[in-house]
């Protein structure tokens, strides 16, 4: 890491800066392998920003480094004007995260979970109660408010995690594969919440490998492959009149599986 303030663009950051997130030279190695290799990116305020890439491209690792969950080997990240590694506590106030694999408090009910989280985040009890009730209602978790999280389905876990991520009304929301393993009804609910958040001026950054979802939801997109950004801009700029999926396949190098060794597949045993 280069430390806070080394980037001339970043030092000029103010609340009025049009960029909600600035990423510069972000790098992470696992052993000999570059999981993320010098990624730089500007995310405008109010954007619905999609990071797409094949499995293992470095999407989740990038999000972890942007949200203080993983220390980068090199590079810097500013969220809402705050360097996430030298200003960790303030940065955590400004961002919300829906991680792919963060453990939840399994033996709290959904209501208890949000309540404790609100207190830990310094919200007034009345505010926590109001927001929790509203979020649980919108996310269709009313009946589950008194059920242990251990008994939640995958979709319910995603939704309670989203409620936890937005409870403190962050300025930037990071979502790692938010629609993975989620049924269409729950996915639509989550999309509605995110849309409301974005319309209100919040910035959403989500990772996904479902092109249709990204194309439909996002106004900006970055294609990541092998830890590097291979294309970035508005969705229209990146797809250049084609389908995003076709651009993506071309960018990351697609391959097809036809016959050959799989000739046995689906045949009568």
């Amino acid at each position: 890491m280069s430390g806070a303030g080394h980037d001339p663009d970043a030092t000029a950051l103010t609340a009025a800066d049009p960029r909600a997130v600035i990423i510069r030279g972000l790098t992470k190695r696992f052993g000999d392998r570059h999981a993320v290799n010098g990624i730089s990116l500007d995310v405008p305020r109010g954007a619905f920003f999609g990071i797409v890439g094949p499995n293992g491209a470095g999407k989740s690792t990038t999000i972890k480094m942007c949200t203080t969950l993983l220390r980068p080997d090199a590079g810097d990240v500013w969220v809402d004007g705050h360097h996430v590694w030298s200003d960790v506590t303030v940065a955590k106030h400004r961002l919300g995260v829906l991680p792919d694999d963060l453990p939840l408090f399994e033996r709290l009910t959904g209501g208890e979970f949000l309540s404790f989280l609100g207190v830990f985040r310094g919200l007034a009890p009345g505010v926590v109660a109001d927001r929790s009730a509203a979020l649980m209602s919108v996310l269709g978790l009313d009946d589950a408010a008194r059920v242990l999280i251990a008994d939640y389905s995958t979709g319910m876990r995603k939704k309670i995690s989203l409620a936890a991520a937005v409870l403190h009304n962050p300025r930037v929301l990071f979502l790692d594969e938010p629609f993975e393993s989620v049924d269409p009804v729950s996915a639509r609910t989550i999309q509605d919440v995110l849309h409301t958040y974005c319309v209100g001026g919040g910035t959403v950054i989500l990772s996904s490998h479902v092109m249709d979802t990204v194309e439909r939801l996002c106004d900006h997109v970055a294609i990541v492959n092998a830890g590097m950004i291979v294309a970035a801009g508005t969705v229209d700029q990146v797809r250049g009149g084609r389908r995003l999926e076709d651009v993506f396949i071309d960018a990351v190098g697609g391959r097809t599986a036809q016959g050959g060794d799989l000739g046995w597949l689906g045949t009568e045993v």
Partner: protein
Amino acid sequence: MGGANGSAAGGPNESVGSNGSLTWTFAKLKFVLLRASLRRRQSVWNRVGTFVALLASLLGAIAGFIATVSLRGGWSAVAEERFLVIGCFLVIFGWWFGPVLSGGSDETVDPMRLALLPLTRAQLRRGQIAAGLVGPAPLMVVVWGIGLVIGTAGPWWTVPFSILAAVVLVLTALIGSRAIATSLAVLNRTRRGGDLATFVAVLGAAMLFVAGQALQFISDEQLDTMTRIARATPLGMIGDAFRLLGDGDVVGALWRIAALGAVAAAAAWCWSRQLDRLMSESDVRGRLEAAATISALPIFDGFRSRLAHTPAGAAVAREIVYLKRSPGRRASMLTSLMLGFAYVAMLAARGQIRDPMIVLVSPLAMVFALQYAANQNGVDPAAFWIEVVAGPQQIARWAGRQALGAVSILTPVLITGVVLAAVSGGWRQFAVMVATMIGATFALVGLGSAMSPAFATPVPDSGNPFGNRQAMQGTGCVAGLVGIMYLVVGAAIVALPEISLWWAVDNRRWGLAALVFIGALAAQLGVWFASSRFAIRSLARNELVVLERLDARLNA
């Protein structure tokens, strides 16, 4: 929202409330999590287990309180010194290493669950300490501390110093425990580090176990030596401080309290550093390392390819490969082996190491390995689920688990037997022991397989060898009670034939010896056959019931 995000009325306060209220919230969180263990939605066994654990802690607290308060009269100076010095040493050491192996999933002290919260490290540490003081076991130790203050009270002006000593004792135990757990979690992020962490934790637990058991057997001279050694360490010094305060020696006591305080400060420093690393470098175990790990096991690959031609062979191979690769399974097996060896070593250390008869106690080395045999279906619920879905016959899965059960039981016994026979020359005893153990192993794994469908306790496989998702839920307690029942029956299965056979051999009544051997073997194989038949039928009938019981999410 928009521009008003965050700073709007009702937005987050970046100072995150007062430290006092946050600390209190941590304690409250722990209490709510404990209360969840008694919820009606939990299974009856979970609630019974939690109730038994609470009752045991209450009885322990009362017994400890009475013992410590009784120091006020009737104890000789020597006995009092031994009790205080060794007792304080064991309480602190036990608190350091005990939770690592028995209750690693205390959610309030798992920093990863709090990684996204805007808490400073100091707030997190204070909160974790507060949460660590809530629960039956910590409160039991606090009650003991109060008992110590009362029991060792000297002149009135020493009482504040006694209270200080008790507070330092509890805090050192708690902070040290968190420092060790966090350091081991940091080590566990890589495979090699995980193995080292497992070794350190198991070694600590084994030392504690041996020390605790040894107290029951050792002579006065050995006890004095132990007291001298313990008194030379800060952990034992605090016990000495209580004794000195009882005599009015405040200065002598204070520097001993300071010594333990220095340990607490060092532990706090270490904890802080490791906490920082753990929370910001959660993911150093990259995908390539996992792939390399799997491909770097040619021995097991070869072993697997030879075995895995049949469903039963594949089940056996999978069990053994998992034993090697799963950190949780490795830790569990290593713990069982070390504690088993420690148990026998402790008996041998009583001066009987040269007595050939010591070889006959070798089967004690398997005591802790029996936990696998008694919970064959529960040690890896995910594997059970996959096998049910994949659909091999129950007999194949039963065979795989029986094979690993037999390996778990026989390995420590044979190693121990060979070592003891080599040292004592008791090769005749070794032959008798092995002759008995062949049938006994069948009987034990058979019995275990019959018990497992009914009492299967889920122990989900986890990358964290110290993770125990049954912590604070009571299931661990139920598993313990079932395990004790199994041990009693197992002791009869092993000991009765062994003693009888040795008597016949020692008296050179070879005909009787042959009769005992054949009779015992037939009985043991009969137990194995009947139990196994019951187990296979029970699994066939109740497979989905067992699966539901083992479902990792429902039992999380």
